[in-house]
């Protein structure tokens, strides 16, 4: 009898510490924007558009020797470059822009149903920087015929580490808590890096190769928009958005000592 009790206690201990069933891929608390209580506000019609420019000569991007992964190396005609600072014709891409302040306190917003996609292609992350809302699906795609292993190292969210051996496969993850910067790397290709900004709202964009961006769905108001680049730093600008209208904001970055 005593043995049964001891066994039962041990089993209970094991079960308590057990955690989730394997296969659950999303973290708990679906779609949690931080403020509880009020129902999510519908998206409004205002927007902020603009361009991010780069002043001066951009620093050379580091070359990557992909000799150890022939299947990726073969996708490039010359040496592969890590597009840390992606400048073309004076326009800067891969800058993450988002509303920093100005949204009414306690307001929650619907989590966008489309996922944010991060693609592993040519043994690089595309995009190299991205923003996502807490609770929004991150779709991780492997477009290479090799195994990638994406490892996210957040401090406030639960870290993840996923292998994807097959070309074309996708896996989905979610972040529950806003976080300024979640570094992402590939465990088997040490040069692959990306950064994710997790926001409490859906008002963000990433500048394209031509430097352009649009943040949509904003209600009328004055906002501080922040433009963040992993290497070049952060810039802010105050923008007033009319109801159902577009406001413009242009940012300029320059080379730094970082």
């Amino acid at each position, binding site marked *: 009898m005593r043995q049964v009790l001891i066994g039962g206690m041990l089993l209970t201990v*094991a079960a308590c510490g057990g955690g989730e069933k*394997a296969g659950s891929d999303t973290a708990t608390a679906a779609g949690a924007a931080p403020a509880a209580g009020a129902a999510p506000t519908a998206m409004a019609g205002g927007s902020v558009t603009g361009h991010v420019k780069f002043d001066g000569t951009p620093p050379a991007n580091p070359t990557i020797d992909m000799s150890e992964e022939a299947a990726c190396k073969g996708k490039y005609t010359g040496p592969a470059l890590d597009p840390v600072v992606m400048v073309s014709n004076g326009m800067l891409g891969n800058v993450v822009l988002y509303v920093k302040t100005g949204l009414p306190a306690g307001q929650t917003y619907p989590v966008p149903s489309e996922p944010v996609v991060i693609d592993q292609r040519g043994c690089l992350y595309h995009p190299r920087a991205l923003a996502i809302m807490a609770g929004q699906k991150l779709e991780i795609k492997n477009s290479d015929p090799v195994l990638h292993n994406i490892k996210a190292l957040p401090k406030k969210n639960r870290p993840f580490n996923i292998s994807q051996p097959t070309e074309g496969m996708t896996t989905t993850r979610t972040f529950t808590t806003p976080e300024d910067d979640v570094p992402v790397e590939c465990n088997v290709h040490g040069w692959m890096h990306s950064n994710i900004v997790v926001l409490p709202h859906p008002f963000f964009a990433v500048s394209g190769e031509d430097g352009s961006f649009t943040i949509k769905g904003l209600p009328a108001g004055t906002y501080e928009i922040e433009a963040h680049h992993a290497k070049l730093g952060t810039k802010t600008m105050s923008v007033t958005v009319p109801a159902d209208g577009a406001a413009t904001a242009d940012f300029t970055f320059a080379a730094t000592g970082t």
Partner: protein
Amino acid sequence: MATTIGHVEEVTLGGAEVHADTRSFVRKYIFSTDHKIIGIQFLIMSLIFLLLGGVLAMVIRWQLGFPKQPMPMGGVLPETMAPGGVVLPEFYNSLVTMHGTFMVFFAIMPLLVGVFGNYLIPLKIGAPDMAFPRINMASFWIAVPAGFLMLAGFFVEGGHAAAGWTSYAPLSERADLSGVSMGQILWCISLIVLGLSSILGSFNYITTIINMRAPGMWWFRLPLSIWSLFVTAILVLLAMPILSGAIIMLLFDQTIGTHFFGPAQGGQPLLWQHLFWFFGHPEVYILILPAMGMASDIIANGARKPIFGYTSMVLAILGIGVLGWGVWGHHMFMSGMNPTLGTQFMISTMLIAVPSAIKVFNWLGTMWMGNIRFHVPMLHAMAFVSMFTIGGLSGIFMAATPVDIYIHYTYFIVAHLHYVLFGGSLFAIFAAVTFWYPKMFGRMMSPFWGRVHFFLTFIFYNLVFFPMHNLGLHGHMRRIYDPTQYDFLKPVQPINELISISAFLLFATQLIFAVNFIVSWFKGAKAPENPWEDNGLEWTVPSPPPHGNFVTVPQVYRAPYEYSSPFVTEDFLPQNRELPEAAPSAAPHS
């Protein structure tokens, strides 16, 4: 003389019946203190884990033979293990870890020590039960939650432990390096609990053998199975606490912030290796000694001849038990420890080859001039000798430190360990299960299917593991998810395929054994008291024996292997058979 055996009433001279057994079903078969039932309980649990360990091996072999291909039925596995049926590298690492863990701790060790230690010791020494029957019951029922804990690791986030069954730190203690946290913790706790089970069993065995031998059962009349279980029990008693200690340190590093093995805060990764292997090497002798002992019993029986060199066989068992403590560093030749230590361990390792060689020669010597019956247990026992020899000889390569530089952590090691653990221990287990099945269950296993199982197993087994020597000599490393990543391994990939296909066939063949085992339990031919015409005391009681084993305490007159004795017409002479005064009990040694 009268004896009180637990709740069995006193029995008297003159062979009065053992009294009616008044125990309830639960006390008879579930929470039983009867060593025979406990032995059978361990048998069922261990055979289940043997099967599970084999299933894990099949997934490993699938991935190695057909890297990155979706596995048949792989779709049942969750995305964290094998999305689309394609095994993930992290899952592969936990597969190799858990295959080793299940096989070593939950299959081979309990099969040899828990099953046959429990079943044979009281019967073969003429005792009614173990010295501490209730502790014996506890030993099994503590092993059960250990088993559940070990299974639970597959269902937690991060998956099961994935740092190898050897669990080297710092990989095993850092979730950021391995991706595993809860699984490794469960692994640790499970083994601590299992260690308790083993330790409880071990001092029971030791006490029983020392104190409860029947009159006339002198030390040098003990069958070799009992000698080996005795020395094994001492090894278990001394070695398991070391493992538990090391695992507790690992657990503390993982959970409460100690730094025994973490170098950043002053710990030593090599400390884990020393502690683990100081346990680990005696552990492998725990995994082979009972097999050797039982093989001796069965070979003498099959050859109808006394064991050749009984005294040397005993000395060899003792020698292995003692020398086994001084060789642990041979697992660490490449570890970064001082090379001078390597030389010392090399010497001690070379020496331990000697007692094992003695045993092989003596088994051959037993068959020499015998009158060999090829019953199924004998087939397995002879295969044991043959395969263990290969395993032992391959060990010499890795004992030679310069050669070990090349073959360490390659498939040469995998071949070696499987030749001694499967070719050795598991064949001996098949022999022992078949041999003592009639005594345990009162039925015979089918000899025909036993032979089919034996021959197919022998063939496929060698097709699986012999080529691994060649893979290792080619440089094929262990524990690698996809060998085709290396150009130099691409040419030997066809060997991996051959091994994998043979492994699938080997696994399928074991279903024959499983079916034979289960069906014979209900439909096997009823077993007589002594179907193998063996000399042991267990064959002088009914099949299965009653609770309390012996109606009267046996009196032992002679050594255990008096086959083909000139003093009787039969070719066997049980240890407790009384002969007329004039006939001596055994011939003097030549």
